């Protein structure tokens, strides 16, 4: 019998270029914040979501590093690496550890430190998330890969180029009220239209900025919470993970994010809900095209129609803060920033704040259920969690 797993504490650092802070210091900041938020629970196991530390900081073995630095020497700790989905995969590991009864309290901590290295070395590190022998060797980068998908999407579905403005416009508008977001300024359609090309057809606003950050989520069972727990209780109703071919070119239909679809189906099946019963969706908007493909994979739009959910008409866009299915509610990858292997934990923190009613100016009314989805590359891995507020 699997135990019910609740979120006891959440913590995060601002997402930015933390020149003055090291990997371990960032990790500790988020860890301490989550422990304090929980009322002082001590994790018995620590799962660190990280992808780049061995390459960019010459540091592997983050489990022992961070447990040691946090004064938790002795506990179980290890890195979980699944490319850009490392954070989501670490959350799933922590969930399984508590749900199985193996431990009473587990922490998922995402941490990423990009800013110790700049330029071509970062791009080379990013490329290792794809197929080294058949993709990276050709000089392909994750951004170029998103551009390949976007160009094919525009061609196959005859979508107007400007339609993709909807996603960054919504993300930037939502980031304004998030004190931890990298960008806190709304942008206009005109700004989007005039933005410089990054990898055609992607422009600057189609690509989420990489930056440093750490976020942590502390999980336990409801009966172990300290007395007088001050937050509305949020449980993890489902956790799932799926993979697709590592290389994008090995798929019969590159525009089908199959792993994203499978992970949503598995999560919804476990929670016995349909995607329509979700009140908000934190998706993986590392690129605006990925937002559209994720919405389609989750079944919120037909193939080739995902972009329409970000268009304002007589009603506000479906995925805007005032729409039926808000996404990127605190800025998403685009405005909060993309802290690599930590991003999946930021999603969990932000969704928890919404479900608790602690999301500040961007608080959504009457939200009970959130879906969060963390992808690696073009959904070569996909991790989906369903979070649910428990009333009473």
């Amino acid at each position, binding site marked *: 019998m699997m135990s019910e797993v609740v979120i006891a504490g959440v913590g995060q650092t601002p997402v930015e270029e933390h020149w003055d802070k090291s990997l371990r210091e960032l990790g500790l900041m988020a860890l301490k914040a989550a422990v304090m938020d929980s009322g002082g629970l001590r994790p018995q196991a620590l799962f660190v979501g990280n992808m780049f530390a061995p390459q960019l900081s010459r540091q592997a073995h983050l489990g022992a590093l961070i447990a040691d630095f946090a004064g938790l020497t002795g506990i179980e700790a290890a890195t979980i690496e699944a490319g850009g989905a490392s954070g989501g995969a670490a959350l799933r590991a922590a969930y399984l550890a508590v749900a199985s009864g193996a431990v009473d309290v587990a922490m998922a901590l995402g941490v990423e430190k990009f800013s110790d290295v700049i330029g071509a070395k970062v791009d080379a590190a990013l490329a290792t998330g794809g197929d080294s022998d058949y993709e990276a060797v050709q*000089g392909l*980068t994750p951004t170029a890969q998103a551009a390949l998908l976007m160009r094919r999407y525009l061609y196959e579905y005859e979508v107007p180029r400007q339609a993709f403005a909807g996603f960054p416009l919504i993300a930037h508008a939502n980031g304004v009220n998030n004190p931890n977001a990298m960008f806190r300024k709304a942008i206009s359609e005109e700004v989007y239209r005039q933005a410089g090309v990054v990898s055609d057809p992607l422009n600057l606003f189609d690509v989420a900025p990489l930056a440093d950050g750490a976020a942590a989520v502390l999980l336990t069972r409801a009966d172990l919470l300290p007395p007088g727990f001050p937050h509305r209780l949020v449980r993890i109703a489902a956790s799932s993970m799926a993979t697709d071919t590592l290389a994008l070119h090995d798929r019969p239909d590159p525009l089908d994010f199959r792993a994203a679809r499978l992970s949503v189906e598995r999560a919804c099946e476990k929670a016995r809900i349909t995607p329509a019963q979700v009140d908000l969706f934190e998706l993986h908007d590392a690129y605006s095209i990925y937002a559209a493909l994720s919405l389609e994979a989750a079944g919120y739009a037909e193939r080739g129609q995902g972009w329409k959910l970000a268009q304002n008409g007589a009603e506000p866009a479906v995925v805007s803060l005032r729409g039926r299915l808000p996404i990127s509610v605190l800025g998403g990858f685009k405005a909060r920033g993309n802290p690599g292997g930590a991003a999946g934990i930021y999603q969990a923190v932000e969704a928890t704040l919404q479900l608790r009613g602690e999301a500040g100016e961007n608080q959504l009314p009457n939200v009970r259920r959130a879906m969060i989805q963390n992808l690696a590359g073009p959904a070569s891995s996909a991790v989906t969690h369903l979070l649910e507020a428990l009333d009473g």
Partner: protein
Amino acid sequence: MEISRHWRLRKQRYALVGEVCPHCEAKLFPPRDICPECGQEARTTYNFSGRGEVYSYTTVYEPPAGYEENAPYTVALIKLEEGPIVTAQLTDLGDQPVEIGTPVEMVTRRLRQDGDERGMIVYGYKFRPVLARVSA
């Protein structure tokens, strides 16, 4: 230096040697030993023709380490005439605009220079427009 790694891949890099599944006849590139179509073992080599068309393409302006000297360069998904799609750079473009559907053929070119002091150069496949050869 990774010499042995590049050596292992020489048949793929220089000659697009893939596999054909003896059970369902699916053509596979890159070779992968287990057929994704039928799940059975596929180890029969198959020489791809090197002809195909552009499925999608883009330009890389900010290259990874080792690729700086070619930048900006065009990278594409090429749908081979036998079915599989491969990721590859386009080369010898001249003034011709690339489009989805442009017919291309494989050529061997320098892919990258390894970043150490001995500077090992890696060669492999790129694709060029078929029409460029006719008009040249």
